[in-house]
């Protein structure tokens, strides 16, 4: 029974994308090893080697394309899971802020967030079940193999899932009950527990999918050594954990932002408008806070993939997937641009913001320029005439922008400028009262100038004038520079503006509808981008269920082309949007009451 539940909630990650063999490339060396090892496999071992399947081992069902079914179901599950894991994280933070500041607006907003995620929670389980169903129907042997290795952790997963549900329900339904000096602490503790359990769930599910990318605890033939910790603690587990954790937060923020934006646009009263504007602002803040460190988590993950297998790394960054990163650059550029645009629009909320209008164009120039560098592909698409005019496929000036050091530099500058937008926004309505304003500002300017100089120096010197080991290594001090500047500048800024006067009251709700569309753009781009990255994360396994151990021999073992993949992703995104609208609609009607005089018996009659 327990096992059954364990299976029922196998998150999509385990499978979905992962089981689907996506493929190209040649990898025969590993197969030799696999067959040899299979031959030598200890007969006494209770574990079987990975089965060698043929096309016939993949059932077909009513003409469904099994891979696309599992792909879409898993992707939907992943989006919902990311959302429901992320929301409690910042609900917890917002609730804590509310408790600290004793500002009830925070508490109300936190409650509204969790209300939205509650319905999404059951949808997560439903699409998770659908994913599992798809896997059992279309990939039974793969599931058998995975289950034989991860059975304990799957049972554990099911138990934790109950704990998660319990925490969530107590946290949500007990919200108004657990108010007051002592009870609030109890409530917060439950919130913390909820997050801990949710994160644990994600870690478990991640271990299954990273096992498929970088198998551990099994020999070359796929015979499990019996140590489940070995299989879980595989090479890419922690990099994926980190990347997903950060991305979930940014993603949750962007979805809540879209919710607030929609409520804002359809609000009828100024109070409502103000409330949802404020909510949208906070959600966007969360999204940006998650977005800024995300490129670094991504670089860490890619570096680890390279370290695990160079072939996987080159498949990832070169060849067909190279163009995927151009699409990714466009999407991330879109995220940064819309996040900035939203902040700039927000300057209009206060009279004081007008002072800073003039600086925005410079920020825009730097951000767009950095983005163009980031977007420049390594391989230029040239017409024959251009080829002739250039005398070759290399562009003397644009070519060098195509490699990583240029892109690292660009993304760091972009992050710094986005942070600067935020600083301007923070200052918009304030006038500092401390005596050392000038010195403080000078210090901040110096800090930014130095940081930019350092980032440029590292990027240019190490990127182009030393050998490749340093090229990669130089990105780390660049990242540290950026993070350090963000921390120091925040500290200085909060000191300067301690007890600062307000220029005029902050007028929440006074933003143009355009800014709300920026929030939608953020949410849609984020969703689509996650789908795209899911495709490549799974795609680099090529024609393997479990890399180099368990080959995918289904008719769908081929790697989908980018066009094919993006079409699937778009369909999935539209499905997801439809479900999210449903969730939002539920959140809306749950607060509505219809007066029906004469319908019910009057009491006492």
């Amino acid at each position, binding site marked *: 029974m327990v096992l059954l539940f364990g299976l029922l909630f196998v998150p999509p990650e385990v499978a979905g994308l992962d089981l689907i063999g996506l493929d*190209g490339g040649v990898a025969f060396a590993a197969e030799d090893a696999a067959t040899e090892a299979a031959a030598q496999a200890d007969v006494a071992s209770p574990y079987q080697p990975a089965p060698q399947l043929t096309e016939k081992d993949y059932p077909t069902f009513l003409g469904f394309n099994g891979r696309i079914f599992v792909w879409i179901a898993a992707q939907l599950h992943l989006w919902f899971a990311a959302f429901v894991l992320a929301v409690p994280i910042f609900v917890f933070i917002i609730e804590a802020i509310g408790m600290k500041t004793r500002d009830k607006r925070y508490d109300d907003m936190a409650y509204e967030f969790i209300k939205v995620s509650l319905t999404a929670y059951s949808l997560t389980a439903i699409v998770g079940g659908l994913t599992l169903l798809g896997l059992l129907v279309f990939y039974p042997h793969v599931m058998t193999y995975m289950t034989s290795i991860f059975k304990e952790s799957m049972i554990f997963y099911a138990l934790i899932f109950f704990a998660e549900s319990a925490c969530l329900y107590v946290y949500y339904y007990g919200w108004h009950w657990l108010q007051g000096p002592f009870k609030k602490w109890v409530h917060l503790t439950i919130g913390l527990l909820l997050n801990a359990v949710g994160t644990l769930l994600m870690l478990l599910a991640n271990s299954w999918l990273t096992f498929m990318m970088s198998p551990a605890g099994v020999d070359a033939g796929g015979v499990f050594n019996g140590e489940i910790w070995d299989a879980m603690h595989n090479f890419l587990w922690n990099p994926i954990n980190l990347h997903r954790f950060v991305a979930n937060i940014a993603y949750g923020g962007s979805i809540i932002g879209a919710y607030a934006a929609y409520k804002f646009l359809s609000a009828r009263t100024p109070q409502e408008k103000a409330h949802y504007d404020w909510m949208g602002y906070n959600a966007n803040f969360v999204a940006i806070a998650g977005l800024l460190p995300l490129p670094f988590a991504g670089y860490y993950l890619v570096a680890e993939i390279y370290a695990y297998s160079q072939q996987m790394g080159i498949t990832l960054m070169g060849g067909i997937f190279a163009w995927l990163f151009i699409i990714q650059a466009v999407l991330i*550029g879109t995220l940064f641009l819309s996040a900035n645009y939203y902040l700039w629009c927000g300057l209009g909320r206060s009279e004081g913001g007008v002072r800073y209008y003039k600086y925005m164009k410079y920020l825009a120039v730097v951000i767009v320029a950095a983005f163009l560098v980031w977007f420049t592909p390594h391989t230029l698409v040239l017409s024959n005439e251009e080829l002739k*005019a*250039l005398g070759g496929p290399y562009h003397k000036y644009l070519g060098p922008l195509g490699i990583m050091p240029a892109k690292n530099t660009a993304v760091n500058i972009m992050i710094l400028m986005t942070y600067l937008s935020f600083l301007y926004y923070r200052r918009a309505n304030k006038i500092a009262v401390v005596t050392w304003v000038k010195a403080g500002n000078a210090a901040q300017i110096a800090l930014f100038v130095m940081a930019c100089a350092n980032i440029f120096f590292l990027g240019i010197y190490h990127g182009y004038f030393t050998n490749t080991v340093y090229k990669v290594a130089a990105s780390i001090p660049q990242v540290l520079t950026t993070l350090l500047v963000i921390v120091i500048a925040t500290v200085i800024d909060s000191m300067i503006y301690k007890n600062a006067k307000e220029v005029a009251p902050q007028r929440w709700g006074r933003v143009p509808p355009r800014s709300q569309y920026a929030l939608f753009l953020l949410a849609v781009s984020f969703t689509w981008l996650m789908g795209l990255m899911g495709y490549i994360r799974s795609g680099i396994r090529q024609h393997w269920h479990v890399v180099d151990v368990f080959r995918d021999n289904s008719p769908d073992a081929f790697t989908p082309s980018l066009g094919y993949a993006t079409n699937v992703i778009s369909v999935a995104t539209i499905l997801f949007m439809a479900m999210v609208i449903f969730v939002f609609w539920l959140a809306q009607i749950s607060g509505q009451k219809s007066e029906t005089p004469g319908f019910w018996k009057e009491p006492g009659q």
Partner: protein
Amino acid sequence: MKIPRLLQAILVLGGVYGGFVLVFDVILEQVIPSSLLNMYMFFVVAGTYMVFTFSEESTEQIVSPIKALVEDPSKKMLRNVVFVLLPLFFGWFTYQQIKPSFEAPLELRTIHPAPPAAVKVFGKRYNLLTLENPFRKFEKEDPEKFASLVREGGDVYVKNCQYCHGDKLDGQGPYAQGLSPVPLNFQDVGTIAQLQEGYLFWRIATGGPGLPKEATPWLSAMPVWEDFLTEDEIWKVILFLYDYTGYQPRSWEHE
């Protein structure tokens, strides 16, 4: 006189576009590929839109002339002219885009296609993931021997490679002009400096015909050098390539 906001925006866009063309095509004499320029301009337009519309006042100034053009009765004449010219312009533009031309379709070359895990050359199977230059170790152990190996590699290069790749390794050899795709320029930071020696070994030994499918369309004239050179000669010429250009081969040491 203050320039109207709408005109400002148009001037900015025109200026950036002209600037790209001026800087790359005229001053630097390296044309900017139109595919790239189009995408650049798309995001410049997005950026310009952001700057000009984030505040209400500015948006108003941008929108009002357009609104006036469409709604103001006094601008009837101008409106009629614009309404005739705009469709004509788009028609002309579309025609230009789709009319048949003698230009061959755009071709993409993946400069560094992903290598296979292993490659069979010289009758042996090499694991590209672990393949190293057997002579690289002499760089530290025996610099004199290393120098002589590099010299021998140079001889191999001059006898075989320089006709296409050039005596300066810049891809400008005597035959280079006759080839398409043109030979690689090893001096470029984007070529051998990004790669491991094993990758070069694979590319040299199997030549154009050994390229994976994903790298097509790819009519590379690079010969299959395993038929003409020995294994050692290939390793030596790789030493030479790095030595001459001053680049270090990429290594994957995880630090």
